[in-house]
């Protein structure tokens, strides 16, 4: 095979001259991490809310929550991303849309990606939260209501403290997914890890070094998140529940 390996390529000054190719990679790495974590925050908060609403007695509220879940689960992530990035700014009131389009391109890409990934993942988080709440014995809710708790109090003091701990292990895989899914955002030009890897192929003619590095970076993220979550899972495990259950 006539390929000449050159791992030193990362130390060469980049095409724009103000950085090395290693610097490009680090920028992409930071972008992937920052994007995924901020989207995860949205997914967690919104997903918890929607998941809880799916279990409440009110037909309107649980119906709305179900619509949220079905909408974001049945459209491919890439299509959702394009809708946020290309379509929404056109449909917003003119002032708001123009303000968005006049902001820095990186800001536009980042905000669209963050909102898109966050909402996409929130539907999945909501399903986990719902099944966590539903897995609790019905006696817990009935007992709480019987001793005079209001419904919000029942959720606040009885159901959620259990459900949120039960739901941690299944959320680990959603947390891993958000890092992997963030690679989709390279399609709208956001310079995260996958996009930087592709850029390096174009600029350096060392495709193997670039792709191997990016792939290993994703594996690294995966491993770190897995160990981190294992630690969290051990801390929140409910005594008496083997492995936390689903």
């Amino acid at each position: 095979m006539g390929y000449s390996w050159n791992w030193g390529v990362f130390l060469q000054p980049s095409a724009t001259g103000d950085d090395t190719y290693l610097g490009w990679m680090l920028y992409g790495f930071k972008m992937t991490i920052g994007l995924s974590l901020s989207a995860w925050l949205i997914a967690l908060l919104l997903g918890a809310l929607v998941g809880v609403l799916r279990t409440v007695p009110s037909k309107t509220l649980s119906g709305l929550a179900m619509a949220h879940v079905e909408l974001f689960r049945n459209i491919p992530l890439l299509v959702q991303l394009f809708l946020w990035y290309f379509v929404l700014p056109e449909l917003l009131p003119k002032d708001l849309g123009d303000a968005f389009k006049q902001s820095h391109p990186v800001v536009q890409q980042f905000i669209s990606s963050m909102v898109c990934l966050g909402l996409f993942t929130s539907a999945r988080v909501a399903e986990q939260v719902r099944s966590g709440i539903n897995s609790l014995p019905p006696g817990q809710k009935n007992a709480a209501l019987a001793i005079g708790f209001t419904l919000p109090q029942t959720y606040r003091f009885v159901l959620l403290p259990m459900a949120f701990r039960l739901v941690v292990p299944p959320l680990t895989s959603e947390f891993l997914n958000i890092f992997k899914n963030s690679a989709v955002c390279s399609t709208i030009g956001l310079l995260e890890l996958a996009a930087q890897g592709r850029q390096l192929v174009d600029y350096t003619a060392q495709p193997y070094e670039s792709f191997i590095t990016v792939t290993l970076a994703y594996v690294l993220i995966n491993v770190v998140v897995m160990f981190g979550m294992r630690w969290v899972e051990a801390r929140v495990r409910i005594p008496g529940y083997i492995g936390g259950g689903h």
Partner: protein
Amino acid sequence: MYEFDWSSIPGSLPLLAKGMGVSLEITFTAIVVGIVWGTLLAMMRLSSVKPLAWFAAGYVNVFRAIPLVMVLLWFFLIVPNLLESLFGIPRGSDMRLGSAIAGFALFESAYYSEIIRAGIQSVPKGQMAAAKALGMSYGQAMRLVVLPQAFRNMVPLLLTQAIILFQDTSLVYVSALADFFGTAAKIGDRDGRLVEMLLFAGAVYFVLCFAVSQLVRYYQKKLKTA
């Protein structure tokens, strides 16, 4: 306010249908490869031959740690060149599309293998023991006793995965394959009606995926009561 103009959609329906054909073709190929190769991987992973089990575990864990976009880029940009230089295939023979589909199928196999492994493990151990006591070989016991029961339990999960897989096919966009979404985006760009085209594409995906997921739910209920 934005002025909608849906007029470019009716004329481009034949092209969009062709794109949908490509999407379904990729979906179908990946499902077939995924189930066959996924079953083999699952059996390897549960096998007592250690190197096979290690290989399957490594395969599944690596593919599940990498984003699909990266896998598609590998198979689109790197693998064709690698194959060319390894086997001396003349340059210019375009393998990129086949390569992208192969990468997609290999990626999805890792996910299928995990579902199938759980399915095989859900069959009580006594079934295998009883089959062996009747004098069946390991292969016969797997094929005639364990796998049929395992697959029956797995149908809802396999179908759900098929919906996810169908949605994932939109990502072949990165390898310039003209699937349904790629076609819609291209026509939208050409006619300057990207907004309408993207909304239309989103609606089509939603209707298809929602309908199939409701079918799966119905089937799941039937399976439970049966």
